[in-house]
């Protein structure tokens, strides 16, 4: 019954109310850490559609705030506060009522990246993903509009 799919690197840990993504990246942990913590880099990959962010503010210190706004949702940025900033292995932040953890460890050909999103309760996890679903659905529609405009 586990939703774990090792090859896809995605798991839903219901016991810990945590969603977990794992990736192997062909770059050293300090390079990957920079990708997550420097605005000029975050801006280039955060939006799932691939568009650069319209706003990307990062105050990289415990208690410092960040705000990432995509073109489709300029009015609703992904905003939060850093809780722990430990290059090159750990970045922890509070955002949208959940705790986000970016864990980087050295792997033979680069870095093993683990992203965890931990919610306070199963109800919160449900709510959180439903919000994500809402955003994802909006994005799909946006893509469709763009595609239709180009056709």
């Amino acid at each position: 019954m586990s939703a774990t799919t090792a090859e896809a690197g995605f798991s839903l840990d219901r016991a810990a109310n945590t969603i977990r993504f794992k990736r192997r990246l062909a770059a050293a942990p300090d390079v990957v850490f920079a990708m997550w913590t420097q605005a000029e880099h975050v801006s280039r990959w955060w939006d799932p559609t691939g568009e650069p962010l319209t706003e990307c503010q990062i105050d990289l210190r415990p208690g410092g705030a960040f705000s990432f706004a995509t073109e489709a949702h300029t009015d609703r940025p992904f905003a939060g506060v850093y809780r722990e900033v430990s290059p090159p292995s750990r970045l922890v932040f509070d955002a949208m009522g959940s705790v986000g953890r970016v864990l980087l460890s050295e792997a033979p050909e680069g870095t093993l990246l683990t992203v965890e999103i931990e919610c306070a309760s199963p109800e919160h996890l449900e709510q959180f993903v439903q919000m994500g679903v809402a955003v994802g659905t909006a994005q799909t529609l946006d893509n469709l509009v763009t595609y239709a405009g180009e056709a």
Partner: protein
Amino acid sequence: MVIEQAQQLDRAFFALSDPTRRAILLRLSESPATVSELMDPFALSQPTISKHLKVLEQAGLIETGREAQKRPRRLSPTSMMDLADWIEPFRRQWDARLDNLEAHLESVKKQEQ
């Protein structure tokens, strides 16, 4: 219909919030089992097991079969699909994001070379 689905999802999440019920589901994912077959590994009384099974069944996570005098419980395949469907767009969103990260890393590496 939409409200019904949301209520069903609420029930599924409530059912999954208990460690014993998660363990029962895990056991049933291996093979169907009757109440008495579930009593042994969990060291729980028959009424306690039955209570958990009732919650799981109401949440649509398991079904009751019929084999002669036995009533084996088994996983309901569709309900787990509902849960998987529900989380799928969120997973896709993050997968796309991490694909972008990977592509961006590659382009940065090329620039540096």
